[in-house]
């Protein structure tokens, strides 16, 4: 079986029903794509299939066929995608476990809608984050889309009433 992953065709000798997630993680060593639920609920396993976001835990590797798979490792060179840059600048991740999936979902959203509204973000970004980084994800998407200035967002994180400090 052949799989086109991050621009390279890879050979796989695996069971056809193996979910793409596990083929990526355990056969190809691409562990950036995460296991969170196994039932397409949480989105930690989000990859792009021909540019569309997909939950790799629930897609048998045999169903991928000729489709081009992009994982978080292949999204950009040196984390230079606008989403990754905004994520880094705003320190979006807390624990970080779900963030590969969040980054891939956000990148797919911006490819489809370059200037998303909050409603677009609500609709497209339904991945689970238990640390609760949603507000920063929203901010970062607006920064990545060029709809919010990084400096303004960072400044809004700043106010601390330091005159009370000894």
């Amino acid at each position: 079986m052949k799989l086109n992953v991050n621009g390279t065709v890879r050979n796989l000798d695996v069971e056809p029903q193996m979910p793409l997630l596990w083929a990526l993680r355990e056969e190809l060593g691409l562990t950036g794509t995460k296991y969170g639920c196994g039932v397409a609920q949480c989105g930690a396993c989000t990859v792009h299939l021909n540019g569309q976001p997909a939950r790799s835990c629930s897609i048998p590797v045999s169903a991928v066929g000729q489709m081009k798979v992009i994982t978080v490792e292949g999204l950009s060179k040196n984390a230079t995608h606008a989403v990754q840059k905004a994520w880094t600048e705003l320190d979006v991740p807390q624990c970080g476990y779900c963030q590969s999936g969040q980054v891939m979902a956000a990148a797919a959203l911006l490819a489809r809608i370059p200037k998303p509204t909050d409603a677009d973000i609500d609709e497209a970004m339904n991945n689970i984050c238990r640390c609760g980084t949603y507000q920063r994800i929203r901010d970062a998407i607006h920064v990545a889309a060029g709809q919010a200035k990084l400096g303004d967002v960072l400044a809004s994180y700043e106010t601390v009433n330091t005159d009370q400090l000894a």
Partner: protein
Amino acid sequence: MTQINTSRRSFLMGTATLGGGLALGLSFAPEAMAQAAYTTLTPNEINLWVVVKPDDTCVIRIARSEMGQGTRTGLAQLVAEELDCDWSKVTTEMPTPGQSLARKRAWGDMSTGGSRGIRTSHDYVRRGGAAARLMLMQAAANRWNVPVTELMTKEGVIHHALSGRSLSYGKVADDAAKLTPPDVKALVLKKPSQWRIAGKSMRRLDTADKVDGRKTFSIDLQLPGMLNASVKQSPVFGGKLVSYDESKIAKMRGVKGVVKINDSTLAVVADTFWRANTALAALPIVWDDGVNANTSSATIDAMLREGLKAEGDFWQRKVGDAPAAIQGAVKHVEATYTSPFLAHATMEPMNCTVRITGDRAEAWVPTQSAEGSLAALAEATGFALANCDVYKMDLGGGFGRRGGHQEYVNQAAQVAKKFPGKAIKLVWSREEDMTHDFYRPISMAKMSAGIDAQGQMTGFHVRVAGQSLNALLSPMSIKNNKDTRQMQGFWEEAGDAQLGYTFPTLLTEYVMRNTHVPVGPWRGVNTNQNGIYMECFIEECAKAAGKDPLEFRRALMKNHSKHLAVLNAAAEKGDWGKPLPPGVFRGIAQFMGYASYSAATAEVSVSPKGEVRVHRMVFALDSGHVVNPAQVRAQIEGSVVMGLSAVFMGENTVEKGRMKERNFDTYPVMRMQHTPKVETVLVPSGDFWGGVGEPTICVVGPAVLNAIYAATGKAPRDLPLRNHGLTLV
């Protein structure tokens, strides 16, 4: 490696009490720690906290676990501040518990919970930074043959203004490491007003590899020849493994075998996790469900309700005769509130990798209790502590789950014993994780109050009935059958989780009702439920008294100036009393936990169909000091999400003795679309050090619940709200 003095047995006993880091398991003398901290052992090590490399890189050691809360960055800021180094040259590393033990527990209590990461180690880590700076300066003074008092430092460079000479830290690090450390107790630390690294929103040190998939979580480990295991525990807590038919899966691809871990647990081992887990699903297993087979949420509910009425000696705080004062009042307010079991549902499921080579065992594990993991590894293998070590992996979420209970370490070790020399990565499926958590304890509270003709409270009585954390984690801390931990937030003592109200008469009671469901600390622990009980009830009292909820609270808070200041800050920034758009209502709440004071306002609308929209939350926090405002803010935003998930959606129910919810399809949690805009006001009062990750969650629920009460006229008392016609949209 030096001889370890601690006996394995005493260490095991000590770490067994590390209740998610909430109880100080082993007591260690800070004095002894300070001594040990300045005994150098490794190259370029100025002291335990600071290593300066020849290229000026400052490696700052972090003893606490990083699970997203930002402790790595915050602690590094504190050390770097006193070290006066170049922040852009700071990296961090985490000592192992084995290294710590070998140096007489030099890094102290490494456990991470109870929002203690910074608040209980800020002093000694800053002294570590300050001592290292002095030693670097002394090394330069010696080289230049000038008095150290003529030197100054700036961003990692030592200057001698009189001669115009300067040297970077890296150039004198070797010499500095050989010097006798100064008396650390005599060091004068900087005041927060002098800080230039601490107190600032420095970017996290650990973001870069979280955005491109490079970060290796424990579940991502790949070691040569590694095998994978998927684990299955008796579906009913307390049930037993009767038999299994290994022949049915023996020929499945990649399968290496089945390991019986204990009398209620087995694991299937295969070349990959997916194959192990697939084979596990196909493995016929016979269980004996045991005595709990017929327990259900209904039977547990009845047991707790009996506790609300039971007669006995349950009191914890008593001021005057509250029941009589309530009885004799003009008006009575009474309400019963309920909270369900809750899973932590960390995004990274429980997992651990163990490799046994000869007489040595190593574990790679996302843990909140490094020493607890080490103890579990030693116990499971029977090896001496000195022959074991634990490599802490950053956690894909912790929230209290990965502290006091270390059963995944034991499981991985038991499997690894059967495969000597092979690394065994044992991973729980999401279903296993959700059905075998150590859940937030179920509880109920019956609250009553009397109100006089002037609308003043005459007395307040709270009785909580529910499951005890300490009964499982730390039975020795329950004295005279009174478990004070369950009444967290109702305490009289100042400084940690003090009740912010003074009532003319008061009675607090806790009735322990333990179920067969295992429980553990869950972000915010008992301040979650107790904060809701107190703050929703006080709202009902204000309503009964015909008073503004804010004014009603203020009148009871005259003896609690810090609580009050934070409440006032939230009210002011939350525009309390100012008009709202039609259909939008406001709620407010305050509570204390983990030595910090929290308050919040919420603006909420409720549609006729019960759809609740939270438009805005304003949060005030006095954590004493703020080491990184941006990260404190992030913790508050996270608390809102976890707190509202619990209030609206979260519930684990018991059916035929087992947990019914198995994955996120039946255990819904908040997503982007539900998330309100959160505004934060930080009001550090500067004379104490409080926690951040946990204290901020306890007011999230009640602020929103009180706004719903304002909107609907009906006080919500039973959680989660989705069971009662209210959904978060």
